[in-house]
């Protein structure tokens, strides 16, 4: 023991001073990185808004595409995107949550091959059923695209339910399904919805998969309305309708030789980006609300 020199109070203070400096340095670096990210996003967004400023207005939202840039609008694209997102969410949520529950609560150890075959089968299903260039096939394709995101987020959410809570329910005589239905799922709703919204905000900007299934870039009509005035009030014809979507419309405008269309593209881009940011904000808000309600 005697061989080891005793640290003096001065030594301790000198060391502490240095460590506190390091602490501050980290805060500054972190802040700088964050500001840089936000600044780049803001610059891109403002640039789009400035380029597209001349086109913002009610007409832009209520007009179909047109040969003339100043008369063209995003009506069919916005409606198409909304419908596709609706189908995507409607498919990705139950399939993703079911898959995650199976993987997390029921699956034996060789689950991996199972999920791969499952996704393959779903893919084949979409392409082989001859759904063609329809809203339904676009929605299914995008659902397939975001399924991994939804599944991973849901598994994470399910796993965050403490073992003690599951044991409490099992201890009262609940079956595995009752534990999942009454406890695990309700307590992880926040995480699941967050995952779904993040997935959707990824899907909303996707162009390539929609082009593959043949979205048209010039559509001057709306799909039939899902709601009708007479019995049975619901109409599923819109699922089979041809469509276009926001990113497709943008892509089309950007590739026009006429410079006037660039403003349209920028305006549509700004709107799409705004929608994405809004969805992300919604995800953050949902997560915050659920965290506040349930803290383990």
């Amino acid at each position, binding site marked *: 023991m005697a061989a080891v020199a005793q640290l003096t109070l001065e030594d301790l203070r000198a060391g502490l001073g240095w460590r506190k400096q390091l602490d501050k340095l980290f805060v500054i670096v972190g802040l700088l990185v964050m500001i840089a990210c936000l600044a780049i996003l803001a610059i891109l967004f403002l640039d789009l808004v400035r380029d597209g400023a001349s086109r913002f207005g009610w007409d832009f939202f209520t007009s179909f595409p047109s040969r003339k840039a100043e008369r063209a609008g995003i009506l069919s694209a916005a409606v198409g995107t909304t419908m596709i997102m609706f189908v995507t969410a409607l498919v990705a949520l139950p399939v993703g949550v079911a898959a995650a529950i199976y993987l997390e609560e029921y699956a034996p150890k060789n689950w991996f091959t199972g999920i791969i075959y499952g996704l393959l089968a779903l893919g084949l299903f979409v392409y082989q059923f001859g759904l063609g260039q329809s809203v339904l096939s676009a929605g299914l394709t995008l659902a397939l695209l975001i399924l991994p995101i939804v599944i991973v987020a849901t598994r994470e959410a399910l796993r965050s339910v*403490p073992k*003690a*809570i*599951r*044991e*409490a*329910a*099992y*201890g*009262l*005589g*609940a*079956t595995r399904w*009752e534990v999942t239905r*009454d*406890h695990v799922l309700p*307590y992880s709703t926040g995480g699941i919805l967050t995952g779904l919204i993040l997935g959707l905000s990824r899907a909303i900007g996707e162009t390539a998969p929609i082009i593959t299934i043949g979205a048209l870039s010039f559509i001057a009509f709306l799909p039939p309305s899902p709601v009708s005035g007479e019995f049975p009030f619901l109409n599923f014809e819109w699922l089979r309708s041809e469509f276009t979507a926001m990113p497709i419309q943008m892509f089309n405008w950007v590739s026009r030789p006429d410079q006037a269309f660039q403003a349209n593209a920028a305006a549509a881009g700004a709107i799409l980006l705004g929608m994405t940011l809004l969805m992300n904000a919604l995800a953050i808000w949902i997560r915050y609300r659920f965290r506040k*309600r*349930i*803290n383990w």
Partner: protein
Amino acid sequence: MQGEQTSPSAGPPSVSITVEDRKAVRANAPKARAEALNFWYGSNQALKGINLSIPEHQVTALIGPSGCGKSTFLRCFNRMHDLQPDTRYQGSIMLRPDDINLVGAGVDPIEVRMRIGMVFQKPNPFPKTVFENVAYGLRLRGVRNRTDLAERVEGALRAAAIWDEVKDRLSDSALALSGGQMQRLCIARALATQPEILLFDEPTSALDPIATAKIEELISELRQHVTILIVTHNMQQAARVSDFTAFMYLGELVEVGATSMIFTNPGKKATEDYITGRYG
């Protein structure tokens, strides 16, 4: 024998244990009996040939150093191990009066858990209302009638000595309660389903001394209605609440007897070493 402090050997100062002046208790007829019970986690044998009777409407405490298998033994009674893969029982725990082997291969673990209640180490209320916590077990059993539910929930909360504290907060979140209240709520939740045996797995290890005292008092009272098996790290607690104490070591049952006997005049050297604080 009663009230007598024994320090049979010189050595480290013995833990001061006050055994209350209790007549040497006579064991009631057994509610359950473990016979030659073995248990494995994978290839690791955690319980070795346990034989133990659990007398009806009395409190039996399981004590022993960490890793001795006392919690493992407790969790055999409601088949909690079945939730883990690669676990195996051998032998039997016969439940009276119908002589069902709780760990038998043909016996449904869910049915076992419907009959045997459990209170866990850390209070684990559901993040639901106070009322829903207690009502959950009843709902699982198909009780739908509102007044029926309300009556039984109140009865369980009264039995768990928490009714007065929560009667105006039945629709508040259970997570807003204090730690001790949460644990009594968990006891009420288990009591609501009228279990035949109630298992306590170190129920006060996460609680402060005052909350602990309330739980111990409650356990002492509950024995009139339900057979109790309790695992505890705390020897004073075993001495205070239990009628019988079983000492386990390395997966084996070393000794069992009336609590006053075990703490004042243990029959085995290992028991004596443990209760005098030589290891633990």
